[in-house]
């Protein structure tokens, strides 16, 4: 902006001259032919229409963002799995538990069978079981095993 100081300052002679010439140019510019004025008006209206469109688009974009989030959440909630799906997803876990129980039972049975076999061998042997509790017999077994 050209201020008054510049206009009165001796160093502002150029500014004074420039402002005067610009004022005359402005006078000439105001007398623009009608066809050019009309085209400028058309250009201005086009620009304003674009501005409105840009603002509308921006508003739509900001309004649409929460809707998209809400819609996504609804979509997730709407697809609840059915009973069969839940049952099918629980099957592997149930199979695993049943398998573990079966293995445990089989292990117990094998232990019982082994113990019964040992008991049967002890009972059917000539040596009475009470002999194993005798310290002398235990010592005899050790030394005979080393020899």
């Amino acid at each position, binding site marked *: *902006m*050209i201020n008054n100081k510049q206009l009165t300052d001796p160093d502002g*002679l*150029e*500014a*004074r*001259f*420039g*402002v*005067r*010439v*610009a004022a*005359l*140019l*402005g*006078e*000439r*510019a*105001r007398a*623009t032919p009608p066809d*050019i*004025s009309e*085209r*400028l008006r*058309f*250009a*201005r209206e*086009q*620009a*304003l229409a*674009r*501005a*409105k469109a*840009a*603002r509308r688009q*921006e508003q739509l974009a900001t309004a649409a963002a929460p809707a998209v989030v809400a819609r996504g959440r609804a979509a997730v909630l709407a697809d609840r799995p059915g009973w069969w799906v839940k049952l099918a997803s629980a099957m592997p876990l149930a199979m695993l538990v049943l398998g573990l129980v079966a293995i445990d039972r089989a292990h117990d049975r094998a232990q019982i069978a082994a113990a019964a076999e040992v008991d049967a061998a002890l009972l059917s042997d000539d040596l009475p079981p009470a002999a194993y509790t005798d310290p002398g017999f235990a010592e005899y077994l050790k030394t005979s095993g080393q020899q």
Partner: protein
Amino acid sequence: MATDKELSDFLKSVEKRAFKRTAFAVRDDDSALDIVQDAMIRLAEKYADRPAAELPLLFQRILSNATMDWFRRQKVRNAVVHNFSDFEGADDEGDFDILEMLDGAATGLGTESASEAVSRDQILQIIEHEVSDLPARQREAFLLRYWEELDVAETASVMGCSEGSVKTHCSRAVHALAKALKAKGIAP
């Protein structure tokens, strides 16, 4: 944020000067109208959300860029280099005194006789012609500074040069205009 009305009022206030300034640069009314429309649309699409106070400087910058784009598209590289370079003739103003012009101007536009009023339009045409004949950078600086009333810093920002260059361009433009107009017996 500038409202539609503020944007409309701003464009209305600036469109004729913008057209003239561009027509000076490209020397073709149709092209100048296209460039101004392009600049208006760029401003409206990309900067309509800016405060109204920022619009003048933004628009001048966009208009300058749009004019440069036009020159690039025209592929008149040599003309661009010639018009937009800082190459200017030797300053042979000599002892030309701008104060003398201004003193003469004090009576020049005082009271107009009928014949003066008739010839006023011709004088304005001559002034416009002399402005359009200035080297491009001088004319750009002169018009931005004194017609668009931007300050030195704003003019430098729009032109993409230093403030010192703006002052130099303006000074040379003023002296060239004063000399040319004096030679034709015109005192603005």
